[in-house]
């Protein structure tokens, strides 16, 4: 590492701060960057080993800015946060040192940052993306031109076409190949600059059983329990915005929803593979576009039977354009869903979901969808009760009105204080539910939550105090795992020098990601040399650190 550091950061006035930073983090003892990471950069056949930095300088010179001469000042935008700030400062230093480009940092408060992002009022900005399901599509789709989450101004017809073709491709291998080609375009064009892949980091006591670290950090509590205690206390780290599965959109909401509802399928706690939930079995048509679900004989928490119509109602409700929800697009795989949601028709019966009888649900998809059974376990697909919602309106999620079909039901919800769930005896698999009560706390101060955990007042914390992280990750009850997310920067490709692909590539190559993960984030994050996290079986992303 010594050699690398000296090369990247020759001693000088500007280099001092980062050298101090590196030194205080004990960089001398770390192994060389070439010896770790996924795989070293692949040298082109017969050519000399690829030197990203030399190539970056060469590209910058080709684009008309040798050694960064006359390069207009760049601005990095990030939302106000210590962690983001450190990374932005490191990138600023690296670009200045390696390319001679002057960079300014601008931080803004979250909502202003989001406005600037959607209006493209930025040059370079910090981003992050957490996948919603276990398929590369959840990442690749983000950068299509129609995606509302692209926010770079970048549009590529070939990319859009490949993603569309992949969506319609029933053969898994061919489909992944289409994704690979699409990501190859993305990694050549580089409207995004991957930095690292997230890790989930949380801690639960050894007395908590039946819970397993996994890539989405999703933990169904159907069979989980804490030894010797009636109540399993989990810090959810935020007050949930809603208990209504149609309106939910975040991780804290997901945790609670997962306890009180169940979809057609549910998640295996170890692998997250879909298992029979409300549907005890299903048939899939040979072309992969028709699913027939056979519902088991099971009941809501108030004793009424769960019927196929509950699903039809719930899905139509999500897709109703008048329902204010962020996640209707999760249902677009269903035939006619997008058309109804985007007001191309106002007839909900055109949506491809029908109740053949009380216990049979037929679903027709636009295209074969490899992960549809996964989606059926996702909260946007949960059933809800029309009579309850019609009667109580937005008050239907209050404890006295709430009706659910999951392993737990709502006992008490104290605003900003706690959510208490109790075992739902009406749940079809209640005999396997071992925990009597589950309590979710909304404590967002990481140190406070950690104190409660150390004290024993909390069995499970979903966030950890970053100032103590180096000690915590050495503990046996620290549960960290690869996570389905990418921390990246995006470029506004619509103006200035960033319109030039070579300049973007030079900027992307001039960053030492090993330093970011080993000196700044320090929780075992993996440096990212492509956009899609390397956790989808059989899918290998093309990397950007190659010669064009």
């Amino acid at each position, binding site marked *: 590492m010594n050699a690398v550091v000296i090369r990247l950061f020759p001693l000088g006035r500007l280099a001092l701060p980062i050298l101090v930073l590196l030194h205080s983090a004990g960089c001398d003892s770390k192994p060389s960057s070439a010896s770790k990471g996924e795989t070293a950069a692949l040298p082109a056949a017969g050519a000399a080993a690829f030197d990203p930095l030399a190539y970056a300088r060469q590209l910058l010179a080709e684009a008309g800015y040798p050694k960064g001469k006359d390069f207009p000042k760049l601005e990095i935008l990030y939302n106000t946060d210590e962690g983001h700030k450190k990374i932005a400062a490191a990138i600023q230093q690296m670009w200045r040192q390696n390319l001679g480009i002057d960079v300014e940092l601008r931080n803004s*408060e*979250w*909502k*202003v940052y*989001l*406005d600037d*992002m*959607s209006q493209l009022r930025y040059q370079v900005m910090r*981003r*992050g*993306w957490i996948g919603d399901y276990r398929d590369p599509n959840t990442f690749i789709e983000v950068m299509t031109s129609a995606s*509302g*989450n692209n926010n770079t101004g970048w549009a590529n017809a070939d990319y859009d076409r490949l993603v569309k073709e992949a969506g319609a491709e029933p053969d898994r291998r061919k489909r992944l190949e289409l994704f690979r080609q699409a990501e190859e375009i993305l990694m050549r064009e580089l409207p995004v600059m991957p930095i690292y892949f997230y890790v989930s980091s949380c801690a639960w006591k050894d007395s908590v059983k039946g819970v397993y670290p996994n890539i989405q950090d999703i933990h169904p509590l159907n069979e989980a329990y804490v030894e010797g205690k009636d109540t399993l206390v989990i810090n959810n780290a935020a*007050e*949930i*915005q*809603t*208990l*209504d599965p149609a*309106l939910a*959109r975040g991780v804290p909401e997901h945790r609670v929803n997962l306890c009180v509802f169940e979809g057609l399928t549910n998640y295996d706690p170890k692998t997250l593979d879909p298992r029979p939930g409300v549907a005890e079995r299903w048939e899939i048509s040979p072309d992969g576009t028709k699913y027939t679900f056979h519902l088991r004989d099971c009941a809501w928490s108030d004793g009424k039977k769960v019927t196929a119509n509950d699903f039809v109602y719930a899905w139509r409700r999500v897709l109703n*354009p*008048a*329902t*204010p*929800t*962020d996640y*209707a*697009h999760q249902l677009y795989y269903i035939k006619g869903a997008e058309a109804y949601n*985007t007001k191309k028709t106002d007839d909900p019966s055109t949506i491809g979901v029908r109740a053949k009888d009380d216990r049979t649900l037929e679903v027709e998809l636009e295209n074969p969808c490899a992960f549809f059974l996964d989606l059926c376990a996702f909260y946007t697909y949960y059933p809800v009760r029309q009579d309850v919602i019609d009667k109580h309106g*937005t*008050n239907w*999620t*209050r404890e006295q009105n709430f009706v659910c079909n999951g392993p737990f039901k709502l006992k008490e919800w*104290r*605003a*900003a*204080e706690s959510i208490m769930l109790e075992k739902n005896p009406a749940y079809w698999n209640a005999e396997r539910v071992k925990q009597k009560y589950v309590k979710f*706390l909304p*404590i*967002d*101060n990481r*140190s*406070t*939550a950690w*104190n*409660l955990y*150390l*004290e024993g*007042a909390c069995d499970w914390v979903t966030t950890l105090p970053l100032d103590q992280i180096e000690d915590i990750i050495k503990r046996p009850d620290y549960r960290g795992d690869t996570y389905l997310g990418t921390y990246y920067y995006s470029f506004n490709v619509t103006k200035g020098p960033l319109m030039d692909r070579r300049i973007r590539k030079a900027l992307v190559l001039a960053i030492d990601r090993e330093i970011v993960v080993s000196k700044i984030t320090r929780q075992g994050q993996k440096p990212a040399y492509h956009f899609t996290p390397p956790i989808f079986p059989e899918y290998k992303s093309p990397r950007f650190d190659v010669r064009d």
Partner: protein
Amino acid sequence: MVAFLVRRAVAGILTLYVIATLCFVMTRVAPGSPFTTEKTHPEIIRAYEAYYGLDKPVLVQYGRTMWNYLRGDLGPSMFYRDKTCNDFVWSGLERSLILGALSAFLAFLLGIPLGILASAWQNRWPDHAAMSVSIVGICVPNFLMGPLLILLFTFVLGWLPSAQWPENTSWNELRKLVMPAITLAMVHVAYISRLARAGMLDVIHKDFIRTARAKGLPEWTVFLKHGFKNGVTPVVSYAGPMVAVLVTGSLVVEKVFAIPGLGQHFVTSATNRDMNLIMACVLVYSVLVILFNTLVDAAYAFIDPRVRVS
């Protein structure tokens, strides 16, 4: 007295109306929307706006908001979709009132005796000791005080739980309030003791005190009966805003001790752009400030007959 209270009530309502209007304008002008996230499309934001009536002309929104306030309805929270502002404000205010009252009590209980002590032994060691305590109270911010107390009482001594609101009224649960109350009170203990000291020192050099001493009254009677009543007036004028601040909660103390009070909503509602909740918090806070200031002005009349409520 009645005329005074009526006048203050009318002025208070007018003040509230102006505050509500200003606040309404500021929430609409501020950049950012309560509905944006990293994953939200513009069409979805329009659906949200239609749902919460934000697609209507601003004057219509304003009229509706004011009409709802008259009916005691603070409106739905725009961020917490299942809850109304009433849900958050009243339960939060209840907690903050309890904790705030406790800290205010603590602040008086410690602050006034410290101040009197210091003035009685002016420039001698009790004075220096009391004023040192006060300097510490002023200098150590509560985001440091809280964690220091936790370190000491929870992790070194093991006497007190580190955080959370009591579940019931047993001592085991109620002791959770000890550290937050001390943390909240410390800075006020400091100010009150300094104000009491200064007030007492001012008074004990007055003629009527000399007269009292000349009559041969015992020193403690001079001090506590004649001096105290007059010396403590600066504390009373400080007490009004102090109590208003204490009972509306403190973001820092609520965060450090996981207290579900009102203070956190002031900040989180603003960062969430939860327009209704921002307004609800500001209005409740304004009502309390107006209320306590009125009470303090009325209290003057009782303490000092020279002050007429007019």
